[in-house]
């Protein structure tokens, strides 16, 4: 039909083998794609935008806090920290690794052509974008000021901001998350290649499977909590209203039933990435593979039993609180097991220090601190002292940024040559890793001290004695903010101009490294038969850059 000769396409095809990126062109080929790899890239693009948005709010928050009285009005500040939380939690952290790296790699890692439901996968992205539009709309109209937790009755009755719009956004993002989780679970059960039994699955797949379980079991509960808040806000009547005998603490129960396991949605996939990276750059099978896999499942299940540790001081029953505290220590064990196993993986290995490995080191260090400070908050007496202070802020940023975001970067650096077939600048990557590590610690270590001294979170103004530590924290945040832009720049540059690499630049094991980079649309020319587990590592043979 096309009568004109199109040299570019043909020539490009001549010099580059067909892959999922060049097989089709035009915006339609992206917006209507059902290829899990293209959807992963759509997600990557979207969550990067949301990360920049949320990061901008974070920088403004930190700027505000350089002065004890603040730079902006309290109303503005409250909207800033709320939008930072809403955007980062619901639109960056929850979808981050599962929807991008997980989406891209999970089918390949188990030897499948795609996820079980490719069209639902696309629907998931559209739901996410719908939610993101609601969130952006809420920001544009003047923001929301309830905190990302939407606690009743402030959110239902007292707030004069766009609670409903933001809650709708979170609701849609939640369903996007559910559909991703559902897809992963069914894919892992039904789409594994011949020979890929459960004990041969890469730990990344285990982690994303466990994440999927939390997504489908937890997310609907927060969805209904947000619906109830929405109804109560619109109709001025509801079940959290103390004036008709309602109990605001009930909202916290159904909110945290999801939102505590949600932190495992955010961290588990990161743990999967780290398991892969450490194995590859130690040239060894992960120490105690079975225990790492089992601990992912353990975290996913035990994570549902501990939500009440967010509510020790709310007037929750003392006895229920004690049980929650006890169970919380149980869930600390599998996390500790993982850290020990990663460390032991390097034992008698052949360790090299490429940038993904540097990020993995940063992850272990920061996650260790994040995890240990979690113990302060699950111990009831110290939680009473530290609850609602900057100690909590620092703790979850250590886990979420120091853990999740760093793991995300480790994964991006590890699989970037697979995703785009080109290599980024290693010196820049190392520099960025060090800068992020330094900036991060400078930002959040002072906040532990602030919390111990009693500075409450979500304060637009604070007593002058806290200023020095706050200024330190802001200084760190500015370094961190700049540091996060560096990978965005050199990774984008590598996408277009980086040196081309072969299918397996790291000489890593696993099915994703057996296929071409970038992969073809259906990943495998013929369905692979798996005869060994994913980590049959030996010594590295030659220099890795193709």
């Amino acid at each position: 039909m096309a009568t004109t000769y199109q040299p570019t396409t043909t020539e490009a095809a001549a010099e580059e083998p067909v892959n999922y990126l060049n097989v089709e062109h035009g915006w339609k080929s992206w917006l209507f794609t059902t290829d899990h790899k293209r959807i992963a890239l759509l997600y990557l693009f979207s969550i990067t935008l949301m990360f920049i948005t949320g990061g901008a709010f974070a920088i403004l928050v930190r700027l505000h806090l350089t002065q004890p009285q603040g730079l902006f009005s309290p109303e503005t500040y409250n909207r800033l920290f709320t939008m930072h939380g809403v955007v980062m939690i619901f639109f960056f952290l929850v979808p981050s690794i599962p929807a991008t790296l997980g989406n891209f790699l999970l089918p390949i890692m188990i030897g499948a052509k795609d996820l079980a439901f490719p069209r639902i996968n696309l629907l998931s992205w559209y739901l996410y974008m719908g939610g993101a539009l609601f969130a952006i709309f809420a920001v544009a109209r003047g923001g929301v000021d309830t905190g990302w937790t939407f606690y009743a009755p402030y959110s239902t009755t007292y707030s004069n901001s766009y609670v409903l719009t933001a809650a709708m956004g979170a609701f849609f993002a939640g369903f996007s998350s559910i559909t991703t989780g559902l897809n992963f679970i069914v894919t892992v059960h039904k789409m594994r290649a011949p020979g890929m039994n459960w004990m041969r699955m890469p730990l990344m797949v285990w982690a994303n499977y466990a994440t999927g379980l939390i997504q489908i079991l937890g997310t609907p509960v927060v969805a209904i909590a947000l619906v109830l808040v929405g109804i109560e806000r619109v109709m001025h009547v509801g079940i959290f209203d103390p004036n008709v005998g309602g109990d605001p603490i009930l909202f916290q129960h159904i909110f945290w039933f999801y939102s505590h396991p949600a932190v495992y949605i955010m961290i588990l996939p990161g743990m999967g990435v780290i398991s892969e990276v450490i194995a590859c750059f130690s040239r060894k099978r992960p120490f105690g593979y079975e225990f790492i896999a089992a601990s992912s499942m353990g975290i996913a299940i035990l994570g549902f039993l501990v939500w009440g540790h967010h509510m020790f001081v709310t007037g929750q029953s003392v006895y229920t609180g004690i049980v929650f505290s006890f169970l919380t220590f149980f869930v600390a064990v599998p996390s500790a097991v993982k850290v020990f196993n990663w460390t032991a993986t390097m034992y008698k290995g052949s360790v090299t220090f490429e940038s993904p490995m540097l990020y993995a080191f940063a992850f272990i260090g920061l996650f260790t601190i994040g995890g240990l400070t979690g113990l302060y908050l699950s111990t009831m007496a110290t939680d009473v002292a530290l609850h609602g202070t900057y100690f909590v802020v620092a703790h979850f940023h250590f886990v979420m940024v120091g853990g999740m975001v760093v793991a995300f970067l480790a994964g991006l650096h590890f699989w970037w040559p697979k995703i785009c077939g080109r290599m980024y600048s290693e010196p820049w990557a190392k520099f960025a890793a060090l800068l992020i590590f330094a900036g991060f610690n400078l930002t959040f270590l002072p906040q532990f001290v602030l919390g111990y001294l009693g500075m409450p979170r979500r304060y637009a103004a604070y007593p002058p004695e806290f200023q020095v530590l706050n200024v330190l924290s802001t200084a760190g945040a500015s370094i961190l903010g700049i540091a996060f832009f560096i990978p965005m720049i050199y990774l984008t540059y590598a996408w277009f101009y980086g040196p081309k690499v072969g299918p397996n630049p790291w000489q890593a094991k696993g099915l994703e490294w057996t296929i071409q980079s970038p992969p073809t649309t259906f990943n495998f020319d013929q369905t692979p038969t798996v005869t060994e587990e994913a980590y049959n590592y030996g010594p590295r043979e030659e220099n890795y850059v193709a």
Partner: protein
Amino acid sequence: MDADTLGMWTFLITEVLFFGGMFAAYAVYREMFPLAFAATSEFMNVKIGAANTAVLICSSLTMAMAVRSAQISKTSHLIRYLFGTLFFGTIFLVVKAFEYHAKYVEHLIPGPNFHPDNLAPQFMHNAQILFFLYFCMTGMHAVHMIVGVGLLTFLIIMAYRNAYNEHYFAPVEMIGLYWHFVDIVWIFLFPLLYLIGHWHW
């Protein structure tokens, strides 16, 4: 079992927990205000509720028969049973609408216009909570029913096009699972909302 069915079951687990949030709220408030709940449930029309339960069970039977017909390639039976399911589902929704209307007339909608007659004054205060839960739970159930009616319509159209036979009936099976699940939700809603207090024929 194929991926589609497993996906549907996974989705239904999600639905269980979606309703679960409201059931948790129900349990808590029923524990807190047992007598108010009992007194308030007298405003529910048990006969209509029971009849509607029966209607929904009928629709479940026809749905099960529809799936069976598809599995043995009897398209004409399939269409007939799907229409039956659609019919019973619609009946249920219409009855529900009349019930809602009755609640409106009796001023039982929570909010400023909440003035039930004949409710003992000590229960006036907390009664709104039960009605709020009633409207949320049955409302959410009705939304699921409406979606189900839409899906049934889709199935009927496809069945007219001879889309389903013993080799391919997954959509019928999956929508069947959904429909039965919605039925199960109602099976719990009926005693929990209508039968808290005591009533007489």
